[in-house]
């Protein structure tokens, strides 16, 4: 399957960069560099950059979480070969999100950062999610995966927590119109719900006694009703 490595992955990689390139062109436009006339980010380019990076962080977290359900549904393992790239793009966009916040929004005044983290819950949880993503990015190599073995799998389950924190951060950050955060909540609920459902199914199959008993009891109740 050389095509995956040499054709599909590079194409997907470049596609994942499009939002960043668009912002870069918009930033050049906002800085008055000629030749980027059509790339305006509007009256408040810093806000657009901040929010676009935030949104794409969430998008890539969601896409990453879609890979194993897609494998299950299509019975194709190739989805998993893209998972690391998508996860790292989530890290890439959250890094840009933080950079825009620190350098452009706060003008590099780090003194303002700590009070913001402590006083504002939506920034606290956003920052927590970002920090939790760092060990996942650091251990994303095949080598680390081999070395950590089972622990790697356990560690990378943190993505569930990170995704929840990310969506929560978005929800609390918007002024009033929660229609967009609500979409992410629905998507995330679906993706996490799928995993719970699969886990229960496999545990039942193995015959974990207690869980089976609970399930039986529940089925019995359902039948009764």
């Amino acid at each position: 399957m050389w095509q995956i490595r040499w054709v599909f992955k590079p194409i997907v990689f470049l596609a994942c960069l499009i939002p960043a390139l668009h912002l870069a062109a918009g930033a050049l436009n906002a800085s008055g560099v000629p030749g980027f006339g059509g790339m305006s980010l509007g009256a408040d380019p810093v806000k657009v950059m901040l929010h676009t990076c935030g949104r794409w962080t969430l998008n890539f977290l969601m896409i990453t979480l879609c890979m194993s359900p897609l494998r299950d549904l299509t019975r194709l393992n190739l989805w998993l070969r893209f998972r690391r790239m998508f996860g790292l793009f989530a890290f890439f966009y959250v890094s840009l999100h933080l950079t825009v916040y620190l350098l452009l929004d706060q003008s590099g005044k780090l003194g303002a950062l700590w009070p913001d983290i402590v006083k504002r819950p939506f920034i606290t949880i956003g920052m927590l999610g970002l920090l939790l993503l760092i060990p996942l990015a650091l251990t994303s190599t095949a080598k680390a995966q081999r070395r950590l073995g089972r622990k790697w799998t356990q560690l990378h389950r943190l993505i569930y927590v990170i995704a929840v924190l990310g969506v929560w951060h978005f929800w609390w950050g918007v002024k009033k119109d929660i229609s967009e955060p609500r979409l992410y909540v629905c998507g995330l609920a679906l993706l996490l719900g799928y995993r719970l459902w699969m886990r229960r199914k496999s545990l039942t199959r193995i015959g974990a006694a207690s869980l089976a008993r609970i399930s039986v009891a529940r089925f019995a109740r359902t039948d009764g009703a």
Partner: protein
Amino acid sequence: MRKSPAESGKIVPSDITPYEKYLSRRALIAGGIGLAAAQSIGGFARNAYGQPAAALTYVRNAEFSVAEAPNSYKDITTYNNFYEFGTDKSDPAENAQKFRTRPWNVAVGGEAEITGTFTLEDILKPHPLQERIYRLRCVEAWSMVVPWIGFPLGDLIKRFKPTQKAKFVEFKTLYDPQQMPGERSRVLDWPYVESLRMDEAMHPLTLMVVGLYGKVVPNQNGAPLRLIVPWKYGFKGIKSIVSIKFTERPSRTTWSIAAPNEYGYFANVNPAVDHPRWSQATERHIGGSLFDQRRPTLPFNGYADQVAGLYSGMDLRKFF
């Protein structure tokens, strides 16, 4: 002192702004129907900032204007919070284009000797227009400088002879989901309601606005009649007003209904009282370079000398 459009056109541009479209429109009026000016009109149509609006007759009120350079017409008319036309900043400029502002009626009611429904023309007729360059500070921690055209709200209020019981003034925006697509969503309690204490409403800084940059105010900025209270957060400046009512008690205002712990009745700009989810100590000024620093927010948005007295003895943390 009222001047013809051509005369007031001569007063304004160099003093206000280097804004290129504004200048080229002036050039057109001055008689140079050149190619550049024609292109500038074309630019207006293409960019859909609104129909090239009618010029207004007004004088500039320097005493009530700040010295800072106003934001560009484009920034002021494409970056708007007007949830009746959508919650994105760019929505109002797109969705308000077909909004009908004529005929327009304003219902005046409550504790006043003269009440009833008035046409917009009746409302505006006796008031000479003036231009005032005001700071605008949004509760979202960004700011602009805007050359509004209007007249003091106090002058309008006096015409209705409010009674002793009139302690507050309530305003309502048009409720017309057909025309205002944002009102079909339940993001806020419609219609939009605002309210001022009588002394705030009578303050000479409080402005009824009908124009912007020398012309009729574009729909997305609150046509045909809107309020501007420059020392308060922008959301107090209710747009597209159809009702003015004199009341004994303060009305419950739209944003304070939506989130009472975040948006108060007074909503005076105050760097010392943070919004629960973000700081109000600084603001990002729209229209600067990417690397501009945030500016410190001033108490009462820089109008403390004129208005701080209205609130003496009040705990501004409690009455935010």
